[in-house]
């Protein structure tokens, strides 16, 4: 008698519940003959690409035999399949060099998620209820074709809308081409924590609408304005590796790291010095530093460059004397002077330590204000001032492949409206929107409530989702055509940053589809072909598109071709032929464009504005992308839910961070239930007392608070987006997600909703004797 049956036996005498437990279903299963030839216990490694964020890290996937449950002609059974077992960083990949973040590790659970949509679904109940029935692919595609024909016939092709993913990828290129040929506007992509402000600023400053790549490995001084470059921002894995080398990669040299932010983020936690600053005044501090650098001629070379490179700075930014900067930013004047000397590499309070090259970084919260562009331009100018642009240890821009050129695409879709504008139109009485296609994004969850996106969707007559999960947006769809998971499909993306040389992350499928799903790219091609006015794209399948497009790139190895190489190595990297390189080119070293300063000084808005009056809403509200869930797109992965948060050790929870002194004043204790209220909404969550946050700031991680997003995320925690004011950065229209004011009120004692892994947060506890 084995142990289990022994437990059961004892249980029978102990509990009646045991009656249900007899018999072990596995034993009734039939074993089917596998349709792949599998060597048991033999692992093979195949390359792939992490889909969870735009930095598109390279993966090496361990593939082995595994027993999957299947139904064959009505009989349930198990069959051996070749299944992905473990995602590992691709050591050769120029972005992540074999490293992988926690999210990348957990990405495999996307493929094996128990609540993944396994076949096409057609809505049966009301929208948002989530009741669907299974239908065949043919029927599903026929419905889409019919609708598109109808739209085309009505001559309102422009009324077809598409919610797409951000970033440069072959997938997006194909979608864009499809829409262009159909006559619809380009896909709308919306990222709550997107960096459009910085792209715009870089376009102004350097002529490159792109996020920078930092050479931390060779920096000696990093001055970070609010970015979470070691956690979630830009290319975290690439940056983390470089950071490690900056600290300990060089014999006898240890780079210095200063973090400027109103909150000590996960990234800030690694800093040597934290400079708490009044939210939104980062640009002012940067100009204050520039002021001192020029005034004191900290380094003659620098002073010269100031006058030479930066027209309009000859007078040395008189408005930004340290004393004024102190008034505006709350950073002490002498501290401003010290930082300036350290950063510019002059004689500093860091004795015998050279601090050049140094680099200033801006991202995240510093951009998320109504004056985000000003902040970004100021920091760009500061970098130019100390000459850290396009030099070792400074910032540069990863050469980009022009996919459209590489794929020889002709169509240029009409530019898309902003999501906010689109929602407004859709809600207006004269709404022309007839159909919406959603490519696995979830803006309903992340867009400010004031945009009424959900109501807008409710008014759209026909919605198709290609998503794999029933999230807040998919649940509004009439038709769900589930995509393959990334491990089951061809992928190709161009990382925007994180590598010195040009990179294309690409790979083929590593395993057969687990469910009755189809690659969205192929579905679109199929639909295109079936239309009355067929859209004849030059390829039958997405694979053909990749094969064709890679022809534009040189082979990486002798006697091979780029596409074969890419499928073996998990991507292509090297020197991009000029013909397919994205213009305008970033001829290194990047020079600061002369007009930047005029823009800086010309900017109407240098001070941030906040929604909600300070008397009624005394706190700045600082939502931030969660290290586990980003904006919420990975909240459905159990490994990430149970992974302790870096700063709080919280699992399966959400919380609001509050300064202990403030909490004491309000009688709020660790774990207490609190209401956080803005002029636009209220969320109820647990309080976490953190000494790493300014007394007048409340911070809250995004990602939780899903109403529907699989068994693991639904109804868990609260979503800070519910509080956000619809204020935007004026010049780009990007959401100024750090510009909302809130108040907080204690509701009651902790009710266990805040689950912490750590017991204590102080190592040395003093007990008086």
């Amino acid at each position, binding site marked *: 008698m084995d142990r289990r049956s022994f437990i059961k036996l004892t249980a029978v005498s102990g509990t009646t519940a045991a009656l249900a437990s007899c018999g072990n279903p596995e034993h009734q299963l039939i074993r089917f003959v596998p349709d792949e030839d599998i060597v048991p216990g033999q692992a093979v490694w195949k390359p792939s690409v992490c889909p969870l964020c735009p930095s598109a890290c390279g993966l090496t996937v361990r593939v082995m035999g595994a027993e999957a449950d299947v139904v064959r002609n009505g009989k349930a059974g198990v069959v051996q399949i070749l299944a992905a077992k473990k995602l590992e960083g691709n050591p050769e990949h120029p972005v992540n060099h074999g490293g992988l973040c926690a999210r990348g590790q*957990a990405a495999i659970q996307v493929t*094996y998620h128990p609540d993944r949509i396994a076949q096409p679904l057609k809505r049966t109940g009301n929208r948002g209820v989530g009741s669907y029935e299974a239908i065949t692919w043919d029927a599903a595609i026929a419905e889409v074709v019919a609708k598109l024909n109808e739209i085309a016939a009505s001559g309102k092709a422009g009324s077809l809308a598409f919610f797409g993913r951000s970033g440069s990828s072959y997938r997006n290129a194909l979608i864009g081409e499809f829409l262009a040929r159909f006559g619809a506007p380009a896909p709308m992509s919306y990222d709550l924590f997107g960096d459009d402000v910085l792209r715009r600023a870089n376009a102004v400053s350097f002529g490159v609408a792109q996020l920078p790549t930092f050479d931390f490995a060779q920096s000696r001084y990093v001055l970070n304005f609010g970015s979470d470059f*070691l*956690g979630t921002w830009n290319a975290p894995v690439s940056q983390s590796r470089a950071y490690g080398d900056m*600290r300990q990669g060089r014999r006898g040299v*240890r780079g210095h790291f200063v973090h400027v932010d109103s909150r000590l983020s996960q990234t800030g936690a690694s800093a040597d010095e934290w400079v708490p600053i009044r939210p939104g005044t980062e640009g002012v501090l940067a100009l204050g530093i520039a002021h001192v650098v020029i005034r004191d001629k900290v380094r003659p070379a620098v002073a010269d460059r100031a006058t030479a490179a930066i027209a309009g700075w000859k007078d040395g930014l008189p408005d930004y004397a340290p004393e004024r900067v102190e008034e505006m930013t709350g950073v002490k004047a002498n501290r401003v002077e010290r930082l300036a000397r350290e950063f510019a590499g002059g004689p500093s309070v860091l004795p015998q330590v050279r601090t050049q090259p140094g680099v200033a970084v801006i991202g995240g919260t510093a951009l998320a204000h109504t004056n985000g562009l000003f902040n970004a331009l100021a920091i760009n100018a500061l970098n130019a001032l100390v000459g850290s642009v396009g030099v070792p240890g400074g910032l540069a821009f990863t050469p980009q492949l022009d996919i459209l050129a590489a794929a020889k695409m002709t169509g240029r879709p009409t530019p898309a409206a902003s999501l906010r504008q689109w929602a407004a139109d859709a809600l207006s009485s004269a709404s022309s929107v007839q159909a919406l296609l959603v490519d696995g994004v979830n803006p309903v969850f992340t867009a400010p409530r004031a945009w009424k996106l959900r109501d807008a969707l409710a008014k759209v007559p026909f919605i198709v989702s290609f998503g794999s999960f029933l999230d807040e947006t998919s649940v509004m769809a009439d038709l769900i055509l589930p995509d393959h998971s990334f491990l089951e499909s061809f992928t190709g993306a161009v990382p925007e940053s994180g590598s010195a040389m040009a990179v294309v992350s690409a790979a083929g499928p590593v395993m057969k589809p687990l469910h009755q799903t189809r690659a969205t790219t192929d579905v679109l091609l199929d639909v295109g072909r079936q239309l009355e006015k067929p859209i004849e794209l030059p390829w039958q399948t997405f694979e053909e598109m990749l094969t064709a497009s890679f022809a534009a790139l040189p082979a990486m190895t002798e006697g091979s071709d780029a596409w074969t190489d890419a499928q073996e190595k998990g991507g292509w990297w090297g020197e991009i032929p000029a013909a397919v390189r994205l213009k305008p080119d970033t001829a290194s070293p990047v020079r600061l464009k002369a007009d930047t300063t005029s823009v800086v000084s010309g900017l109407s808005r240098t001070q941030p504005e906040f929604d909600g009056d300070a008397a009624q809403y005394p706190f700045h509200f600082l939502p931030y992308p969660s290290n586990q869930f980003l904006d919420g797109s990975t909240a459905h992965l*159990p490994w990430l839910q149970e992974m*302790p948060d870096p700063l709080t050790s919280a699992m399966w929870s959400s919380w609001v961070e509050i300064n202990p002194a403030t909490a004491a004043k309000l009688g709020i204790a660790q774990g207490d239930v609190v209401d956080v209220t803005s002029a636009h909404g209220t969320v109820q969550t647990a309080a976490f007392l953190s000494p790493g946050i300014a007394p007048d700031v409340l911070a809250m991680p995004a990602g939780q608070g899903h109403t529907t997003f699989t068994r693991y995320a639904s109804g868990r925690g609260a979503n800070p987006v519910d509080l956000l004011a619809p204020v935007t950065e004026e010049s780009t229209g990007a959401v100024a997600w750090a510009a909302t004011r809130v108040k907080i009120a204690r509701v009651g004692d902790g009710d266990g909703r805040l689950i912490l892994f750590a017991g204590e947060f102080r190592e040395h506890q003093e007990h008086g004797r």
Partner: protein
Amino acid sequence: MPNWGMAVDLDRCTGCGACVTACHAENNISTVGAEQAARGRAKHWIRVERYWEGDFPDVTLKFRPVMCQHCDNAPCEPVCPTYASHHTPDGLNAQVYNRCIGTRYCANACPYNVRFFDFFNPSWDKPLHLQLNPDVSLREVGVMEKCTFCVQRIKATTIAAKAEDRELKDGDIQTACAQACPSRALVFGDLSDPESEVSRLSRSPRGSKLLEDLGTKPKVAYLSKDA
């Protein structure tokens, strides 16, 4: 005979937690869910400790990844009545799940609190089970589990090397956590080879051992931020 050990460079560690998830992925560690996690049943063979120092505004935060230190003088070993927790010739503190009867004595004896107990039969919502690593045995209710230094990887690579009869090179064997670590804070290797990177790091003046004064002879070196 190799002597496996690890070095953790606290100056590189950013607290990102990739190692934690990597360990779950490699070693078939089941998630326990919110309710059980709240009852202290979460199993993280490697955890990233975080400690605040000072108060606003002069506050700093220290991260410290802690996994089994594979003590050469391991308190968890002599107390185990069944030899489930025992030392291997190559310096690992091995845990034989099938021999463990669940007295949890070893966990009390472990000063680092890195031993975790299966309070229930681990389960995976299908088809999440397809991810399970066939090289790592699943645990039953009532047994202790802990960091093994990814012994399955050590064995596989060693056997492979033998088959191709070549010497193991430093870096041939990587634990899942070290492999994932974006900032290269974790370095695994053979301490008996003075040239290996882990030996070199362990000799660093920045290096120290955790709770060394207890005489457990831990084999994980922690390299402090400041030299």
